């Protein structure tokens, strides 16, 4: 039986791989569920043994992919505290923020035997929760866009600037406008706790979306 510990070199990578894969699925699904893009560009796929929607728009896909590619090193180093999918109205004021709050549990040692299936179960639950979150949320105004924010811990940003994973795809400090939301209301969606990662997803929703 293999035993991984956090000290193992690839541990962070494993976690980051799993999470980024998941985030990709989740972002696609959020975009579909929140109707940021027309449903026509989405296709039904199967992931984690549940149906999900995935965009087939190559540029969108590339953007999401690149974004996550840049997120990955942060997650690897446990520098990413939150990954936020912000849905903004036409004025670029956020109306909804899907916050994936990531932390790594204190347990230092894990084993690989039951791990993956267990994590998959948990991720599946999160995905399912996303796909029904429209029941909990107000409808968004038309013409929304989205962006992805990463809340990093401490001085991770500085390092990030030094090490650009993808050329021409730099991280920038988010505008206050993009981050700040008026009268946010918090809707917890799902919390998952596994051996390798602890993540909770909640939505912050602007009280008055229409304005």
């Amino acid at each position, binding site marked *: 039986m293999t*035993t991984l*510990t956090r000290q193992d070199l690839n541990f962070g990578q494993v976690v980051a791989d799993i999470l980024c894969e998941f985030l990709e699925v989740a972002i696609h699904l959020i975009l579909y569920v929140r109707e940021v893009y027309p449903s026509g560009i989405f296709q039904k796929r199967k992931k984690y043994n549940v149906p999900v929607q995935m965009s087939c728009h190559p540029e969108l896909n590339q953007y999401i992919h690149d974004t996550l590619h840049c997120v990955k090193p942060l997650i690897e180093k446990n520098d990413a505290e939150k990954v936020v999918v912000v849905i903004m109205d036409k004025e670029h004021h956020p109306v909804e923020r899907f916050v994936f709050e990531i*932390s790594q549990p204190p347990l*230092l040692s894990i*084993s690989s035997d039951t791990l993956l299936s267990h994590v998959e179960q948990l991720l599946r639950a999160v995905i399912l929760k996303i796909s029904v979150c429209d029941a909990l949320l107000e409808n968004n105004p038309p013409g929304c866009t989205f962006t992805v924010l990463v809340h990093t811990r401490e001085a991770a940003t500085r390092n990030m600037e030094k090490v650009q994973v993808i050329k021409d795809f730099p991280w920038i400090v988010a505008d206050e406008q993009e981050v700040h939301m008026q009268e*946010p*209301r*918090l*809707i917890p969606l799902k919390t998952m706790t596994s051996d390798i990662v602890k993540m909770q997803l909640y939505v*912050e929703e602007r009280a008055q979306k229409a304005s």
Partner: protein
Amino acid sequence: MSRDGRRKRDRDDNGWASRGGYMAAKVSKLDEQFKMDAPREKQKDGACSSIFTGVAIYVNGYTERLGGSVTAVYGLCARGPYNRRVQLLDPSADELRRLMMLHGGQFHMYYSRSKTTHIIATNLPNSKIQELRDQKVVRPEWITDSIKAGHLLSYLQYQLYAKQKGLSFPSVCVRQGQEAAGPSHGQTQPSHSLPVPSLNNLIPGLNNPAPSLGKPLSSHHTPTSSHSHVHIDNLLDQPNQYNPLAGDLNPQPSHSLPLPSHLNPQSRHFSPGHCFLSPYSSNHLYSDPGHIPHHPPSQGQPKPGCIRPLAPADTHSQTPGPVPAHPSHEHSKPGHAQPQSSLSFSNHLQHSYRDLDFRLNGSLLTYDKTRTAQINWVQEGGGEDPCPVRPTRGATDPPLTNGHAHPVNGALKPLDLSPNPTRPTDTPLNPDRKSTGGSGSLHPASPLSNSPLKSDPPKLLNSPPRNPTPPPVSHHRHHEQLTNEQRLKPPPPTYQEATAALASRPLILPPPKPRQSDSPPEKPLPLDNPNRSPSPVRLNGSHHNAFTPNPAPLETNNLSAIPSNPAPPDSDHQSALAKTGGIISEFYSHSRLHHISTWRSEFSEYVNTLQSRRRSTGGATFPGRDRLKRQRREGSSAAPGPQSCILHVDMDCFFVSVGIRHRPDLKGKPVAVTSNRGPGRVAQRPGVDRQLELQYYQRKYSHAGVSERKDGDLEEMTSAESHVSHGNGVDLDTTCLSMAEIASCSYEARQAGVRNGMFFGQAKQLCPSLQSVPYDFQAYKEVALAMYETLASYTHNIEALSCDEALVDCSALLAELGATPEELASAIRTDVRERTGCTASVGMGSNILLARMATRKAKPDGQYLLRSEEVDDFIRDHTVTSLPGVGRSMGAKLASLGVRSCGDLQQVSLQQLQKEFGPRTGQTLFRFCRGLDDRPVRSEKERKSVSAEMNYNIRFTQVDEAESFLTNLSMEVQKRLQGAGLRGRRLTLKVMVRKVGAPVEPSKYGGHGICDNLARSVTLAQSTDSGQLIASEVIKLFHAMRLEVQDLRGVGLQVQLLDGAHSAPHDPSGPKTRSIRDMLLAQRPPAIHNHTDSLADAPVADSTTNQGKSSSATVPPPFSTLRPPSPADPIPGTSKEELLPSTRTPNHVRTRLNLSIEVPSPSQVDRSVLDALPAELREQVERSWTHRETERSHNGSHHRPSSPHPSSLLSSPSSPPPPAALPVGTLVLQIPNQPGQPGSTGIILELPDFSQVDPEVFAALPRELQEELRSAYGRRETAQAQGIIMAEQRNPLLQLKQVGASRVKRRYKKKNANSSPTKKGPSPLKRPHPPGNSPAKALQHPLRPRDLSNGLKLENGPSTSSLKQDVPETLSKFTPRPEPTLAGACDFTDIRTLLREWVTTISEPMEEDILQVVKYCTDLVEDKDLEKLDLVIKYMKRLMQQSVESVWSMAFDFILDNVQVVVQQTYGSTLKIT
């Protein structure tokens, strides 16, 4: 599958488990039948009543009808004949059924935990007692007597066992036969009115030939007969015994006060046992006779365990000088009269037991001064033991010695303790046992005779010791009785056996054959314990002879020293065993592997000291070297200057040659050292599938070379493959041969094909003339030491390889002497032979490898110098497996590469080797096969790891057992770490888990069978040697592995990344605890006098220490007004930090009840299941939780005093003393300080609820005791009243245990949360609350200030001390990932249940409860579990807003407001509540 599976399961758990539909249907059908039959029966008989209304009995185990099945299950009990005899006298099951019909009761054909109210039995095997410990097990006379009396009698008097809790040994109802067999019964001693067990009675109808045994049974039909209950308790559960009201500790209210039956003064029956037991009786009387604990394998006399709380402590503290010696150290005394018992019981509970026992024996001596010869074994208890440590220990902390703290002072402790003979109390003790018959006995006696007088004089009136001159005959008789007992209790080779129930013993262990005087004591002896005295057991041994009707050869006779036990198993006891904490120490004191491995480090240490001594003195004398030098000068020959020469000195078949060195008759004969001395055949045990194991191993080793192993699937193994020779070389026809392994065999035996490690049974087949020699660890050690001394007389460049082999780097020596290696070698060999009488072989080579290889050629009794020019030829023909480090698996792997000899290996390229075996191993192989080895002889070795492992006899049934086992193992590791002065950072937990499909019971008794090996490790933030810390981490790991505890077969703990503890020598915050004893000694505050004036003061004082933790179910306020106002204590919650040391008295040190082992922790219990339990049971479970809470807080208290200067605790902010706590209902008996005995410890007893005290029982107590109790209750009531002020109108929320558990968890969680950088800001809790009902109240909440201080501390950087402070509390019940809990509940369904109860049952919520909920919600936020928070809030909203009371709506608003504030602060937004 299901059918068979179920049936199997049913059989496995002895039919007591819940059953499926079929059984349910059958049971209900039987019930109906019973109901239908009842009226008919009544008509027939006429005389009917309804006295048994509400009583449902189940008859167990003594009738033909049910007994048949029972004996089938408990085949080992062999109670058949006895049962039948009983049956003649007692009403049969059918009769009982009829009686129950007639008198309105119910008769259950099948036992049902919920419905059956009483179990009728006359005797039960241990396993059942275990299962029934919560039940009322009553003798049938209860029914007949009740019918006679015309009303339902209290069953208490008829209880089969006075206290059934935690039995590991069957308690057996003593049949007191007035006219029972033997002349011994003829003599009566009127004063021996106490129920005392005699061995005859203990094992009725078995070895005892007395045909009249049946007769006394009739006495039970008379209600006046004293139903003495010999309570053979599990020793590990014995903390209870320290309670004079042990029943109180027993969560089982029905047994709470079993006193009356024992106090019954009119018992007129005397069993032979009474004669010699008489001296104890006094103690029984004034302590709790209800629990006459029994220590089966030791002496068979009942130990008045209950005496302990009063007497030992009393005696110690009141009599400064002559305190009896510490018997626990008798484990290490070779001359001990009962080697078997002393060996088998090394755990401390048993120590204390023994202690007690012997002290009592000592007292006996006063009455028998003139007859010392007859009772020589007693003397040795009282007088022989020269080790004086015990008194102090006993005086300072009797509970500790019995408590969970034991692991620290484990069985190996004698090593630590015995060299410490300077105690004020030891002077009167004459170490010479022979001469102490009179004088020595006086001392032990005095305390005893004093103490009863002082503490409870009236009881002495009944006490037999008053009887000044017992008839001499009786003493003789009594002596015979003793021996008789010893015969009946043959020395068990293992603790396991020792704990094996009486029930099984008779079958397993035939009486020992007369002990031969040549059989040496089989104990590991510390080197510093030189005075060995001939074992008096031999004296008794002759009696054995006389009394042994069946002198069958006894395999257990020889050895208790090793765990390999050929005796048949009793799996029920194994579990009981595994749960016992001391088993680890026990195991280590018996495991030969352990001994041998310890010796290696010991000898390394020895060499180290030699080195350092030389360094310090600047030189050393080498007598051997000088001698050799002289010889050299005489015969001066030109010496070749050898460049480098290593000597490998290895004793020839060490164990054997040591074993027979005084037995010339065995020289030259095939001899094997093994634990088995029988004919080599043992009965096949059920559940053993040897075939399968054989196949497995064969397959495994035959496939070992294949890189892709196929051993994963046991099902694959269909047929036995062609026989492959392997370690044990077991043949298929050895199925019932002894599985005792041969540790070593002589060369003669080897010629016959016997190999080390072979099972004895098989070896015997190969070599019928094979003689077996028992282990003799002491002799091994002596010889080994002699060998090392010899070597050290030449040089100090020695590397200890094991106890019997060493490497000597003699390059410099030879250069100095100008001698040849051969000369040196022969000189050494001669010396060794002269000094030890054993031969050694010496191999010489230019490096270690060659020297070792040369030794092979040199053996036996020779020497061989492997010259460098011969190396190539020499090594080429060796098989690869002869290279060091090439074992079976690597050999097989090499074989698969076509490499068999070193010559072959030389052909393999380095690259290929490195590819196959990894860079380092490959390189090593590459070099080794060429005879290259550059390892230096390292006389000073650095340890890389410290570990403790046990893979024998691990049979857990519950997670708790595993946890406590891990805790104990951690303590063992701690001991070793501290012994080596090391601390480690990396912990590895290794477990062996029964392979899926492998037989549940391996063919080797107690062995691990076919297992999967798993390992996990964790790296700590800081290196530690704290067992507690290790335990908590390990338990975490253990939980993370999610194993079936039942399948665990081996557990090992390893600590790596070591650094010397010296690096932080006087770190006050560091876990420097050496032992509990040290802590106690260090931590004795002078202010203890405050507590000594009256015992009644103590509970109050104690309860001040921490209410936060100690609130029990009965006293729920989160903090209590009990605490005396102290200026340093402005905020209740912070009292923990600010308590003065004076309030932390050693009184808190208390036994940890083994209760905790049996009941799973609250978090592990399905609440619905709990709710479904009968109220009584539930109460019990919950009570035990409460116990555990207390224990946990006591755990904390054990740690605090580790700092040498208590005052420094105050000054150092990082180590606030964790509070010790006692439940309020605690009675502390304080004994005034004695000058010679500073820091006497009180005994702390818990009282049951007063409502649970049977008034009759109470009335039956002696007046003094009554008053004592009354005052204690009075005190408690006031305490409670004060508590109630705080929490009047309790509600379920707070009543459901809560506090301790939730708090601990929460604190732990806090720690985690706070250490995460995200939570830098102050906790929202610490901010002023928004307008709520009472912000001020919120501030008072006990949790907050502590959290605050905790948080601050941690943010400053977690130090070991803060870790340490947290960990011990979470230790005993550890949740892998602590979650926020609400009153102990963390599962959402539980929370919901709680909340629903709260809202629906209470009209007006208490503020505190609301705050609890707020706190919980806040925790959830911090735990980042918003989802749950959302659910909780929504659920509350539904509940509270629907409530008719508007208060609830307000309460919800308040909660919501608070939560929103927290959420706002944490997330910048508020929850959307829809």
